[in-house]
């Protein structure tokens, strides 16, 4: 089951909050993050896959009750969304913390896996693997 446009909108609104911004944090297109989350959901166990959009709906419509806000989550200003998400992350309800942890985690996995971000962090894993692989062959070619 693919996530629809409505779910994508909520994920996008959340991604804008949880992705690093400002300072020297590289910018990664939000659409790239949303695409990753959407591509990840089909891999979840069936029950979680079905509950995923329900959780997003809680996030979106919970704003009316928990915000409290006259606007759904995805229509709030960025500053308001930040405060709202902060309430979920640090709130007392475990179900809210678990839900936000899961979606936030996926957004951050996609962000920090981006080549630009990895480069900024100094995580030059491609170069490292190429170097040590070549060295391994040079030293041990006869024994492997």
């Amino acid at each position: 089951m693919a996530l629809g446009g409505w779910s994508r909108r909520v994920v996008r609104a959340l991604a804008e909050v949880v992705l690093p911004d400002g300072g020297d944090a590289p910018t990664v297109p939000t659409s790239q993050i949303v695409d990753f989350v959407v591509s990840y959901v089909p891999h979840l166990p069936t029950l979680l896959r079905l509950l995923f959009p329900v959780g997003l709906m809680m996030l979106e419509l919970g704003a009316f009750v928990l915000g409290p806000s006259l606007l759904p989550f995805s229509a709030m200003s960025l500053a308001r969304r930040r405060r709202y998400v902060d309430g979920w992350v640090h709130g007392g309800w475990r179900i809210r913390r678990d839900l936000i942890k899961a979606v936030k985690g996926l957004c951050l996995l996609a962000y920090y896996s981006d080549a630009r971000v990895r480069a900024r962090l100094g995580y030059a894993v491609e170069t490292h693997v190429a170097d040590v692989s070549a060295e391994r062959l040079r030293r041990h070619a006869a024994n492997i």
Partner: protein
Amino acid sequence: MLQTFDEIAAGGRDITVDADVVVVGSGAGGGAIAAELAEGGRSVVVVEEGGHYTSKDFSLDAATMIKKLYRNAGSAPILGRPNIIFSEGRCVGGSTVINGAMSWRTPDKVLKRWQWEHGLAELSPEALDPFFTKVEQRVSVGPQDPESIGEDARLMQRGADKLGYAWVPAMRSQKHCCGANNCAFGCPTDAKQSVLVTYVPRLLAAGGRLFSGCKVERVLTDGQRATGIVGRFRHPESGARGPRLTVRAKIVVLACGAVQTPALLLRNGLTNSSGQVGRNFLCHPNAKVVGVYDKPIHAWKGTIQGNQIREFIDEGIMITTSMVPPGLLAMSFPYFGARSWEVMRDYDKMLAAGCLVEDTGTGRVGLDLFGEAKMRYDINDRDFANLIRGVALSSEILFASGARRVLLPFDFMTTLESADDIKQLFAHPIPKDEVECLTVHAMGTCKMGVDKRSSVVDSHGESWDVPGLFVADASVFPGPIGVNPQITIMALATRTGRWLLDNEQRYFH
């Protein structure tokens, strides 16, 4: 012969195959027993749900590989207090493709416990020695070449030495591992001697067959004995349906791991007269702490684990390095937005250490509304206290090695600024559901024993209820082992294979 989903789907027709043995799963247990039997002259068919990927397919991009190599993209939740993320491989080679290749024999104290408490007198260190030796040769267990040890392992060692804590150099299944540190997403150099590059080639060379991308749905019986399996080919990534596979066999071996094996048995209503299938679920809960140093240490350079701190192993706590790519590390922190970047920009100065707890409590694997495996595990008070102690000891070692602060796996208490702060961990009770916990070791859900009223299989892995049905994975462990389980799984599976070959008249005529 190895046939993938794409090759079978192109043919379009259902397939029926006859064999002496069908093995479900191609990981540590399935790979070992399949090769043992094929080399012993038996016709063997292995059925693997995941795809077939080799080092040519392995990329260094965690976000991509996690979807290809892991079941549920590494995100299966074990529900309880706290929720625990469980990751296991789902590909040809199983979890050996994505594990750290840590290779330890079952500790003698564990085997003694199994003898005393579960009556498994045959599983003495002496009796198992030939199987351990054989397995260690097959997967090239040995110490790391010194040049492959990373700065993270050296720092851990330095911290432990300063505190007088005992440590051991890592023993791993590898051939001149060069410290690429991409074990969790497939070894890019084939230095790691996973089942993919050891037992699978042996199986195929001995005439065995392996079907990948096929999910086994039914275990066939004639009312008494196991007689085969029925599976459905499904594309490992898209899930697209393909033809059906039927394997008629004299022996059926389940080696799908300690979560999927009991789930398959429960779906089929098999071998549960004891009521023990899925119970006794053990998972070695573990938590990660991250030291942040003043200078770059490039913890991602060098082998995944260069040593293990064994000072507290008799208390059920094992500590080691466990560096992961930035995406996976960031998602385990409670931070987001600008704060996430503030913390993660020090990635190159970070060292991640994991503490593993040998559990004394148990959980349960059952089926959910959709017939899929569901896991339930509430960490008990004793194990939780050990986990917190493990976090404290890991923090102490990191500070002793020069860390300027330590990031904790808790939702609310997130940082320690000095070793003096460690006592804060014990000042107030930490709520269980505020700890970030994970595991890659599932065990115990079809436990072996000598009494069919309290165990699922006998001491050779054969079902008490269904003759000819065997289990050859970590499900059969009657208790936790406190160390990485790969070698124990392989040795017990090899022993089961040898038992079948030595009792040819009973099983194959």
